[in-house]
């Protein structure tokens, strides 16, 4: 597929999502969620289409997309592992947890393993401070992390 065709394809799929959600109050975030669900990320080519439809500027859409960490500019791996790095978890050793995970997976934060199985990301508080240090694998929260649990998580994610 040529670049041109790819962006036309993105535009038409984006337009369909916009059409569905344009009537909502404050439609931009729901539309972006829809797009991320559709493509696995928010492709740059969809931004002008959203701007045109909502009659706002490209810059404004870009500002919103980049404000939220959860909107990705590139597709993630098959699993997304988020490790809390906020204060409570820090006090319970989340630095070491992060280091261990990076070592096990062989990647740093914001990176995806070569086989495309896991993307590792920091997150700032999962609301699980009482069970710190904590993480979240594909939307499922896991508390009281220790080395054993981390190895389990990695094994599961890589499988």
């Amino acid at each position, binding site marked *: 597929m040529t670049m041109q065709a790819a962006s036309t394809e993105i535009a038409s799929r984006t337009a369909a999502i916009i059409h569905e959600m344009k009537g909502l109050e404050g439609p931009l975030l729901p539309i972006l969620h829809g797009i991320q669900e559709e493509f696995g990320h928010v492709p*740059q080519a969809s931004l002008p289409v959203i701007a045109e439809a909502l009659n*706002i*500027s*490209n*810059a*404004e*859409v*870009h500002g919103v997309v*980049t*404000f939220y960490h959860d909107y990705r500019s590139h597709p993630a791996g098959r699993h997304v592992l988020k490790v809390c790095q906020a204060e409570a978890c820090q006090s319970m050793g989340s630095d070491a947890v992060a280091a261990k995970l990076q070592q096990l997976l062989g990647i740093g934060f914001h990176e995806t393993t070569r086989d495309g199985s896991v993307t590792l990301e920091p997150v700032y508080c999962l609301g699980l401070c009482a069970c710190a240090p904590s993480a979240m694998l594909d939307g499922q929260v896991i508390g009281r992390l220790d080395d054993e649990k981390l190895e389990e998580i990695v094994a599961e994610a890589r499988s």
Partner: protein
Amino acid sequence: MGLIQEIDFGTPASTSEKQVTLTVDGFTVTVPEGTSIMRASMEAGIAIPKLCATDMVDAFGSCRLCLVEIEGRNGTPSSCTTPVAPGMVVHTQTGKLKDIRRGVMELYISDHPLDCLTCAANGNCELQTQAGVVGLRDVRYGYEGDNHVFKKNDGVENFRWMAKDESNPYFTYDPSKCIVCSRCVRACEEVQGTFALTIEGRGFGSRVSPGMHQPFIDSECVSCGACVQACPTATLSEKSLIQIGQPENSKVTTCAYCGVGCQFKAEMRGDELVRMVPYKDGKANRGHSCVKGRFAYGYSTHKDRILKPMIREKISDPWREVSWEEALTHTANEFRRIQYQYGRTSIGGITSSRCTNEETYLVQKLIRQGFRNNNVDTCARVCHSPTGYGLGQTFGTSAGTQDFDSVEHTDVVMVIGANPASAHPVFASRLKKRLRKGAKLIVLDPRRTEMVKSAHIEAEYHLPLKPGTNVAVVTSLAHVIVTEGLFNEAFIRERCDWDEFQDWASFVALPENSPEVVGKLANVDPDLIRGAARLYARGGNGSIYYGLGVTEHSQGSTTVIAIANLAMATGNIGRKGVGVNPLRGQNNVQGSCDMGSFPHELPGYRHISGDAVRDIYESLWGVKLDDEPGLRIPNMLDAAVDGSFKGLYVQGEDILQSDPDTKHVAAGLAAMECVVVQDLFLNETANYAHVFLPGSTFLEKDGTFTNAERRINRVRKVMSPKNGLADWEVTQKLAQTMGLDWNYQHPSEIMDEIAKTTPSFAKVSYAYLEEMGSVQWPCNDKAPLGTPIVHVDGFVRGKGKFIRTEYVATDEKTGPRFPLLLTTGRILSQYNVGAQTRRTDNVMWHSEDRLEIHPHDAENRGLRDGDWVRLTSRSGETTLRALITDKVSPGVVYTTFHHPDTQANVITTDFSDWATNCPEYKVTAVQVGASNGPTEWQRDYNEQAEQSRRIAPLQAAE
């Protein structure tokens, strides 16, 4: 002289009429309700430290430097976001506040480069000033670690660092100096209304992003400069400032581009212009600007500018540089010879809408007093002469009814045949601001312009009418208003003649004027016409703004009358927020009309046949004036072709490029024996000139321009004329050489003569303008402060006059040979024939004229975007490249006329307005087809132009 410093009050003024009194640091201050504490303090002379606040944009409260303490309230609220309250006691400087501010400033500085000595903002940096103001002495955090400042940290690439963006030709964006105060983003949104900037990311990663993290030039940015003006650091800096250094003196002057009449501070270092900064007290622009006025002044020092007078015997000869004396003596002798040989009326002149009132007045005076005829005309002939006629007939004044501030009070705006976003950008920004606050918009335009839909604004109704059907559609709006009983009977009975209204009402109510009938011939859905009419009549304050899409038609005057009828019928005249407003194309087109540039009128629109008026001038000038109107521009050219008109003095107008039917203009000029062109450049008309008198720019002379709202603005000299003489001096010397006793020492003396002889200018003088800033005519004993809004208590002519507006289709019709309609317009970055803007970096945005064509029409002809196409009309043909877009409707094509290579006016016909001869630029039947390149005419023309621009090398002195 020194630099003019404007006080930054931090937040915009409140318009409330209720006053509130409070105490700031022990001083009592009274301000309108809704004012911020920051602004109130500044009113009392106490400057609270601030970084993210500036009075061009709303308070934001992000920098946390402007905190204050208020007795009886907890904490330390930000003074920019906290409104005043009665009896409030504010402390702006306490121990606690000092500590907080120092702490905040320490954080800012810890991520800011300390290259102050070599920084472009050195000497005018708000960050530097505020660091000084808060007493910052130490930065405990150091400069190591995470930062946006250094390209490398400990030899490793710093991913937060971003290179300078120098893509815009006029300013740079250096992200390493940014403090993320958002002032640029807010200025782009609130002031300009483009929304091209945003803050991307969050927290420490936040930074300003044009578009979607693009270079400025590729983003939605329109280069208005509002962000640069708002930036408190050197992050956004004019390239000229970086190159030259900080200015040391400035004067307030008026932009010489469009009819909005923006005021600028021309900031100078010595006699070098550093930058033009919009002036906040400028009543038309209120501190805003566009890419032309703000940045496109480079033409004044362009290498093409001619600085020495030149003459030649024949237009096929090369030019010969001569002294001023020789050029003027030659001109005077030639004009006298021609008059002796061919008669008194065989010569004439054209005044310039680009020059000052004083200069225009002198040119028409030279023609009337020196040439002893009325063969004077001006370029308003080809743009807004129908406005003069139409509004004169219906209301009694040949000018717009409102000031620009009025737009802040309007509820429904009807824009007809105008694209202010391109042609009057500062007005467009003010209009968009009002629209974002809820006013409704109706657009009548064949194209879907930026006004119809752009970020945060959208027209309620867009009537994409077929070019040439204005009268039918506007009359049809009146049909709806009359037949549905939406007219304002009380207003009409009081202000207008009821019988005339009834006659008019019975005419517009005829079935042939109904939207259903008109809709068919104009290709507009009748429901849109009905909806628009109801909205305009019932939506509150209704105002109409129109442009050349109204006037440049065979029925231009009729449309102006139809618009006036609409305003009178709905009572939308004589108060804030309403009215009928022509958007004037040129800086002083209003003024040149006011100054008696038309062959039938003396200054102040007084007909030449009036004995009393002629008496005034005859006794002052000591000559007998011709009581018959003279020749209009087209008549002069016709007479030249016929052999009875032989000499022309053209000041600052390029009739060959801007007037219709280029071939006819060329033939007329070629038939003359002495064509004198006074201009900055060897323009297209100069190809046919025998004498070239170099002109001066608006920066080089004193004078006044009158803008579209009748506002007389001062033009102030900031440098001496590079050609040696200001334009008024050239005309005066020519007059003296022709034997007239003129002895003006300064343009103010010319204004005194204008005021003495013209009732509507009676109180105007340079001293008065100095005191008032500017005034809107009429300004006399009846209206000593000038007249922001006319027809307040009644129409100037007495009773407003309803006139029937019968639609007569233009003779320019489509048919099998010419199936498409061509209409023309402008683009933001270029100005008119482009003589000035083409000689600036503005060409980066628009380097050629393109033909906009609908995909459907393009496909039928096998054309692709960017293809060379041949554009043919009954008059001629030219070639240019196609731009395929659905902004134009099928059957309509559009182009701009900024580049002489395109020669769009080879295509336009010589049809013109029935009342005023204003040419029908906006409708030409054409055919479009594939082409290999320039036409024979274009090649011949370019060859002739090149030949005629030769300047002979100077002979070595013997």
